[in-house]
């Protein structure tokens, strides 16, 4: 099985491993690093449950090669809360009841984090466009948009 040496940073921690070329980023963080916050649902870049950030950009970890994070930084949902202290985005999701079953939530939180990094004060329309590729079967989306607006008022991605 073809493999490559990969040297990356995951949630601020350096990781060096030899990985099969065909391993996806989702399987890498979930199975090799035990970071199971990243969920896999559709496996075809449609639902966004697997959203993680690579060098700050949102990607579908289900359809992204683990070897492609060689030399780059990965941020998963586990890397957000600092010593248990939730980020404004996470806090707002709780406060606005922007989750029910919670399966989509890590993906939405990562996508929202990426948005607020580029656009600290997005309009409702910008939020809807940015989150268009994240699906939620439970909430009806309105509390999610509200949570992102609230997080943006609360100072965006940092405390």
């Amino acid at each position, binding site marked *: *099985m*073809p493999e*490559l040496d990969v040297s990356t940073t995951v949630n601020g921690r350096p990781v060096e491993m030899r990985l*099969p*070329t*065909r391993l*996806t980023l989702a399987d890498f963080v979930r199975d090799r690093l035990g970071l199971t916050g990243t969920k896999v649902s559709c*496996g*075809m*870049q*449609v639902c*966004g449950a697997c*959203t993680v950030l690579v060098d700050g*950009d*949102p*990607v*579908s970890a289900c*359809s*992204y*090669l683990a*070897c*492609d994070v060689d030399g780059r930084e990965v941020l998963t949902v586990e890397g957000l809360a600092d010593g248990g202290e939730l980020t404004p985005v996470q806090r707002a999701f709780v406060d606005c009841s922007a989750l029910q079953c919670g399966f989509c939530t890590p993906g939405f939180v990562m*996508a929202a984090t*990426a*948005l607020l990094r580029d656009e600290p004060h997005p309009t409702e329309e910008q939020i809807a466009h*940015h*989150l*268009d*590729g*994240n699906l939620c079967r439970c909430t009806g989306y309105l509390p999610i948009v509200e949570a992102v607006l609230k997080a943006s008022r609360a100072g965006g991605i940092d405390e």
Partner: protein
Amino acid sequence: MLPPFELRRPVSLAAAVDLVATGGTPYCGGTELLAVMRLGLASPETLVDLKRVPELVGITAAHGEIRLGARVTHREAAASDAVRTHAAILAAGAGLLGNVRVRATGTLAGNVCFAEPRSDILTALLALDASVDLRSADGARSVPIEDFVEGAFTTVRADEELLEAIRVPARSGPSAYVRFAPAEHPTVTVAVVATGDGCRVVVGAVGERPELFTFPGTGDVDPTAIAERVDITEDLNGHEDYKRHLTAVFVGRALEQMGVADA
């Protein structure tokens, strides 16, 4: 699970071209290629990752045209001042297509080479009269986008050729881009560009490949006539009647966006 493959990561264009010449498959964002491999529709032995090739990076504007290297993502194109100013409909298409993750990872070059019939990028590039630069171990050639795409998922690119860059004539005249996308890919895309000597209207997504209609001026564009003439493929996105109807409506909306009266 993906089938097994070798992953090569060249750091020069010459090395990339050599790897492709010996049977390697070009790979950039992987948004199409990995999906196709997962479905079992392709199992290339060797992927040639283009993301470390310095010659393929970036957007430059010079000599009346914009050059987009093969590594340029949809997100980069949509945010580029040069593209927004001189190829506004390309920025619009790139900023609207797929979803935020596809736009951050997928490249315009990969989109063009895959030649998916419902491509926003091909619609915009055809309206802008763009061309692509191809390079192989034996030489280089440039092909107008109109001749590059032969049909659904087929182009004139030879297996051993790399798409090096997309070149778009800089234009600042009136233009419009509209699309209807109730699902992941659009059901119809319409681009209109007023040039010095006429008006180019492109209708995409309804057929095998985007189709160009030219008129002496924007005032001469007839949405109903285009809807009657355009080639339609019936599929899960809709029946022929429905797609013809949508075509007329969206050509009309594009003209409205350009401020053409009586559209």
